[in-house]
């Protein structure tokens, strides 16, 4: 059984290379970067061999625990597509134990497993300081690999079972909110810490917690031995082994349960009337806007984007905070960043419809109506959000004189970005998460083209808005009408580019709509 599944896994990996050249390129880049990162970690671990045992132990414990935790959290949050889902074997009548073993062993044939093996071997080098440390590190290497792989197997299965129905996938937004809350707490902690003074202490405390957690214990055991705490070392090795045993039991139980539970579909709740379709007068542009808005409200993929919008500016602030940039300066970050992302959000909107776009083709909808409908939701969400954010930012900055500049930059970036997105989503739609899939799942095929389009649309938006940004920059340092000039330029240029984008994008859509549909069929 083990041998058969290993061969199956190998075949699946091999087939990945038999697709289109672009996918192979993407795969090779993915493989290379994963192994590259692993090699950086390996180099770091070998380098730590020449540090003092206590300094090395802190780094290894915190980083090691984070790695293992990553194997738990990544599948939960991002929803990995499981090629070896136990449920796929339910019709073959394979005994549970041998299936569980075989599936776990076949997980060894994967990029993360190779990376973790390298890292596991490297930490032997770090702790080759006395016999017990060496022995514990050698035992630790396979334990680390097994713990990581079992963690991800269990986590993938739990995520798969919990998110199997469409309805629960739609509420994955809740998970996003939980992540948001967690992020806010961490952000506040980072904000409150004076990194230049207490950085080392924070690391030590975190390492202490990590070393007692089941995720960090296996990394801590050889570190303790190297520092001469032999009893402690054995205790932590025990914790690690017990955790591994429990993981195995959990995995076995999950396989057993999953073999007899098939995903079931849920009866959805009922809506009354036409919802948002009652708002506006009937014209193709208006109904497409109402349909788009309905999707923004109902579709988890749009929820995910909306949650990310307010988080990104704060995420960007973290490094500035750590190097000690003053708060008033930081207050200028959110408005432009949010505006940029809001405008960028719909740059691949056509692909979000997937093949449902056929309706627009079959009904002879004009490209202009299609484009207009798609930019309405970001405007409805974005304009009030940016107004509010600009007022708050100006208040924190300490001068409302800057408010017109903030508004000019915000609205200018939003409108210009939407104009550009209108062209981009008609000309360069690339594979997106399909409707009904987990919003965090990676689309089935990602080429390098997509990341090029993503970064290009950012850069071009900024270039097109450069006059507005320049005026806003001048308003920060010079007296004069610069803030108001920035507002004027932002509105005029923004509206102009939005209009141009809709016209041009509409014409592209009229010409290329069959190709857009063909692209979505391949997705």
């Amino acid at each position, binding site marked *: 059984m083990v041998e058969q599944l290993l061969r199956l896994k190998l075949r699946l990996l091999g087939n990945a290379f038999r697709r289109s050249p672009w996918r192979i390129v993407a795969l090779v880049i993915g493989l290379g970067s994963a192994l590259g990162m692993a090699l950086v970690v390996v180099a770091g671990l070998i380098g730590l061999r020449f540090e003092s045992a206590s300094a090395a132990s802190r780094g290894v414990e915190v980083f090691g625990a984070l790695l293992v935790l990553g194997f738990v959290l990544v599948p939960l949050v991002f929803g990995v597509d499981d090629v070896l889902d136990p449920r796929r074997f339910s019709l073959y009548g394979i005994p549970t134990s041998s299936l569980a073993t075989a599936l776990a062993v076949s997980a060894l044939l994967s990029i993360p497993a190779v990376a973790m093996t390298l890292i596991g071997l490297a930490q032997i080098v770090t702790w080759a300081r006395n016999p017990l440390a060496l022995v514990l590190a050698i035992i630790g290497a396979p334990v680390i690999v097994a713990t990581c792989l079992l963690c991800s197997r269990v986590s993938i299965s739990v995520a798969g079972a919990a998110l199997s129905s*469409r309805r629960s996938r739609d509420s994955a937004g809740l998970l996003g909110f939980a992540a948001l809350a967690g992020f806010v707490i961490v952000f506040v902690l980072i904000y409150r810490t004076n990194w230049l003074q207490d950085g080392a202490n924070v690391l030590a405390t975190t390492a202490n917690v990590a070393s007692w957690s089941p995720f960090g214990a296996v990394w801590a055991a050889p570190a303790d031995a190297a520092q001469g705490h032999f009893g402690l070392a054995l205790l932590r090795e025990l914790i690690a082994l017990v955790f591994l045993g429990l993981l195995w039991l959990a995995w076995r139980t999950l396989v057993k349960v999953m073999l007899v539970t098939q995903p079931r*579909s*849920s*009866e*959805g*709740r*009922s*809506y*009354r*009337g*036409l*919802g948002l*379709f009652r708002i506006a007068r*009937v014209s*193709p542009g208006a*109904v*497409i806007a109402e*349909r788009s808005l*309905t*999707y923004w409200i*109902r*579709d988890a993929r749009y929820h995910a984007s909306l949650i990310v919008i307010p988080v990104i500016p704060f995420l960007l602030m973290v490094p500035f905070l750590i190097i000690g940039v003053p708060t008033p300066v930081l207050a200028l970050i959110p408005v432009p960043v949010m505006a940029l992302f809001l405008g960028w959000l719909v740059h691949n909107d056509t692909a979000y*419809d*997937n*093949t*449902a776009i*056929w*309706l*627009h*083709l*079959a*009904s*002879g*909808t*004009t490209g202009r109506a299609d484009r207009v409908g798609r930019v309405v939701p970001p405007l409805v969400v974005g304009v009030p959000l940016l107004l509010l954010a600009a007022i708050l930012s100006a208040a924190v900055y300490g001068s409302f004189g800057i408010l017109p500049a903030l508004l000019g930059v915000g609205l200018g970036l939003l409108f210009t970005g939407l104009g550009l997105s209108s062209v981009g989503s008609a000309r360069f739609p690339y594979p997106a998460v399909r*409707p*009904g899939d987990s919003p965090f799942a990676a689309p089935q095929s990602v080429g390098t083209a997509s990341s090029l389009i993503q970064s290009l649309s950012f850069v071009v938006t900024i270039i097109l808005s450069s006059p507005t940004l320049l005026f806003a920059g001048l308003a920060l340092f010079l007296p004069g009408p610069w803030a108001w000039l920035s507002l004027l330029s932002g509105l005029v240029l923004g509206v102009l580019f939005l209009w141009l984008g809709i016209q041009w994008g509409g014409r592209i859509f009229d010409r290329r709509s*069959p*190709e857009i*549909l*063909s692209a979505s*069929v391949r997705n």
Partner: protein
Amino acid sequence: MDSSPDQAPAPRTPAKRTTAAKPAASRAATDAATPARKVPARSTTDRSTAPRSTAPRSTTARTQTPRTQTPRTPTARSTSDRPAPTRTPRPKPVETVLSLEGLVKRFGDTIAVAGIDLAVESGSFYGIVGPNGAGKTTTLSMVTGLLRPDAGRVLVHGVDVWHDPVAAKRNMGVLPDRLRLFDRLTGAQLLFYSGTLRGLNEETVRTRTSDLAGAFGFEDALGRLVADYSAGMTKKIALAAAMIHSPRVLILDEPFESVDPVSAANVTQILRSYVDAGGTVVVSSHSMDLIQRICDHVAVVVHGAILDSGTMASVRKGKTLEDRFVELAGGRTSVEGMSWLNSFSD
């Protein structure tokens, strides 16, 4: 719209509609022999009500679109001045409402459609049959403007789909196979969306939605998300969305797949009365029985080419459609070497 001098005035359309509602056999007989029975039916006051009671489209809906007022069959059928009861079969409508000329589509090295010519006359119920992968869906996608052909052209009511798509698509109702719907909308919202994109006003969409829901039997499901529908329900709502704007031609790709027999019978009846009223239906399927039962014309497509087409009788040549199809498509492969299946492993 058209005002050709050789066309007789208004009564012709209702006449055809009225007769169409009657059993086919009696049609020719009553045609001229018993004119007295037909006179009231021909009066203009009657025409909007009499034949349409079985159809899903509401009266108001019909009269709002001006094009439905033009006769769908321009053939002169001046029964009044025909002297003798000649008992001719119902004259075939001559207008070609859909024509495919030399359609070709390649995907890389494979030729999916290798030059298809087809003319569909108005008022016909046209079946397209073929094995899996024969190019049925590819052909219909090119007809409906969803897939750009490599060569050839498609005319819908004389308008080229790929040159004047807006005008051509207005005349078509489309049910594609295996494409998604906007399934985060409720059933009612999806019908509203499809109708308004087709340029119907809100009131019309509302009445037609309730009519269609009644005819297809999904009144209870109008408030649920289409994503939560079963496969058959999804097919039915898509069908309803395809005909909400009362098009001249319905292009339906596998309309009966995963639809239960009762609903299928309902749908068939709806389509029949639509055809009897002068509409044209093109359906693809690999269910030969079904096509033989409901269609009056058929085309057999194998390997991207039409092997035979025409009226059902001319294609069948006295056999069942299935036998004739197997004969055309290259015969059945004999099943050998499967004897192990007859001795169970346990």
